[in-house]
């Protein structure tokens, strides 16, 4: 078995667990925000939220699989660790970027909604 295969075997499960964990955290803790955005319509919010969870899973896992190709031939254990770290960094940073983008969308949207509500009340 080549070391590349071993690297893939280590990389994929680790990133899988990470991506699923992040997605489920977003799913669970995004719900109160969504309830605020959609005026407490729980049935609707749960529907949107679970569609978003599925989207999160497919895109993240797809990206993880996509990154998992064309690594340079790994010859030793030190190179294995270095390569793994570099490739894992790509995934972790991408997840971080998506995460902050999610938070930003929620914040901006709820600001906008608040703004609209106060504007309506004033007129």
């Amino acid at each position, binding site marked *: 078995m080549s070391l590349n295969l071993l690297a893939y075997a280590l990389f994929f499960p680790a990133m899988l667990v990470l991506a699923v964990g992040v997605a489920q955290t977003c799913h669970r803790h995004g719900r109160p925000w969504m*309830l605020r955005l959609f005026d407490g319509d729980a049935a609707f919010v*749960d529907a949107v939220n679970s*569609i978003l969870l599925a989207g999160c899973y497919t895109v993240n896992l797809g990206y993880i699989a*996509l*990154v998992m*190709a064309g690594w340079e031939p790994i010859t030793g254990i030190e190179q294995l660790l270095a390569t793994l770290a570099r490739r894992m960094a790509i995934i972790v940073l991408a997840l971080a970027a998506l995460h902050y983008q999610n938070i930003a969308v929620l914040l901006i949207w709820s600001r906008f909604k608040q703004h609209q509500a106060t504007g309506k009340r004033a007129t």
Partner: protein
Amino acid sequence: MTNTFVLTYLIYLPIVFGLTLYVARTLFRNGRVFMLDIFKGKADIADATNRLFEVGFYLINIGFALRIMEVDGYWGENAYDTMQEVVETLAGKVGGFAIYLGVMLFINLFLFFRGRRKARQNGITINPVPVIPQPVH
């Protein structure tokens, strides 16, 4: 060693079918809420439309999955005979397909939202105005 091409296809097909099934089921089980909104609570037409869209979703995505299945580019200097090549090719194909599927899911979600907004704009909504819950301390 068995034929690595056949091995790749045999692993690829169940994965993409499973993925499509999962995404479509999630999307259209939850899409019912949108359809009921769009068709003003008429359950029969909402379910029918939902089902029609679901079948369309299956056709497009399974068609695309089959379209990109063939392993090519390995007929020249590359032999395509090691497990590493199989894993890398599969990862590329399945990963690309999963991202494509995610994009399709978000397009569908966008269309759901758009339909719901349009339905609310030009017509009387049957659903009562939802009550904003007070935060519980």
